[in-house]
């Protein structure tokens, strides 16, 4: 099997609810520097031709932006990947929300981060709420948000799949 070397070799397939504490920080996921080529490749992959990601003249002169911008859709992917990898195969990313508060310009390196804020045990799994975001190389936050993950209990079965939200 020709699986590229990736961070998956280093990621546990399972994270138990008991292994997580309020305040636990996720190992950050770093992408970049993100070049115009990265942005063009992403735009092509999703067939979204918004010029502010590859047409510098349009971005600056027409839309009055400081330059080419990293796609919001790409930024949310980085946060979703951070969460999916951390939750493991037997957990589940239930919810994630973010605000695109700040622009990230081409050339920046972005680091997705997460920090556990609450833990709640439910009958079939535990729910973990997190603050998440995307920091650039200068430490500026652009994409603050929240997430809710379901994790299995130690010694218990995987989180049911497809995921069925708890009845509140």
């Amino acid at each position, binding site marked *: 099997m020709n699986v590229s070397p990736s961070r998956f070799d280093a990621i546990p397939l399972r994270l138990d609810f008991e292994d997580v504490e309020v305040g636990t920080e996720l190992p950050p996921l770093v992408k970049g520097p993100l070049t115009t080529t990265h942005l063009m490749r992403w735009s092509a992959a999703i067939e979204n031709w918004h010029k502010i990601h590859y047409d510098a003249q349009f971005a600056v002169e027409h839309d009055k932006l400081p330059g080419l911008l990293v796609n919001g*859709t790409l930024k949310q*992917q*980085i946060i979703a990947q951070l969460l999916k990898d951390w939750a493991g195969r*037997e957990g589940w990313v239930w919810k994630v929300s*973010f605000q695109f508060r700040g622009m990230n310009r081409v050339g920046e390196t972005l680091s997705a981060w997460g920090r556990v804020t609450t833990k709640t045990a439910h009958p079939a799994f535990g729910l973990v709420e997190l603050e998440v975001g995307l920091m650039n190389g200068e430490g500026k936050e652009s994409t603050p948000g929240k997430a809710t993950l379901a994790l299995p209990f130690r010694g218990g079965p995987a989180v049911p*799949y*497809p995921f069925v939200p708890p009845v509140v």
Partner: protein
Amino acid sequence: MDESVRNYIGIETEEVLACDPVEAGAVRRFAQAYGDIDPIYRDSDARFGGPVAPLIYPSQMFRRDFYDADPIDERASDPDFDGLGQNATQGLPAIEPLAHLSSLNGGNELEFFRFARHGERVTLKSRYADIYERETSKGKMIFVITESEYRGEGGDLIVRATRTQIRR
């Protein structure tokens, strides 16, 4: 804000089918474009019932169908064309009174129930949930809130997305 804009609140689409099923090649380009080389996107995984697409992928599947008009051709001479076609509005009618304003992705709330499987057809139903104007530090901006539900062939919910587009 032109009051006629409020008439768009509550407008919803019919349930539409994505132009293509979840395709292995499209999934590969998508995952490679943001650097998520996870074996579950290529190899069969018992827990997920076969190879799957990234969590957010279903929300990016609604693209220009084979016989659809080509906005890039149609607006090739329009200096205000920002490159966006119908995929920017999730199948909803464009908000004509806002046509002259630029568009920025303000944020997203995503709720995931399962992965979409390779070969699967996905449907979308969207509605304009809210449209309002707010004074911000950068002047008046119009917030367009769109809710979208992505379902599998059996009608089960895969992803629910609530998007905020900022028009200014």
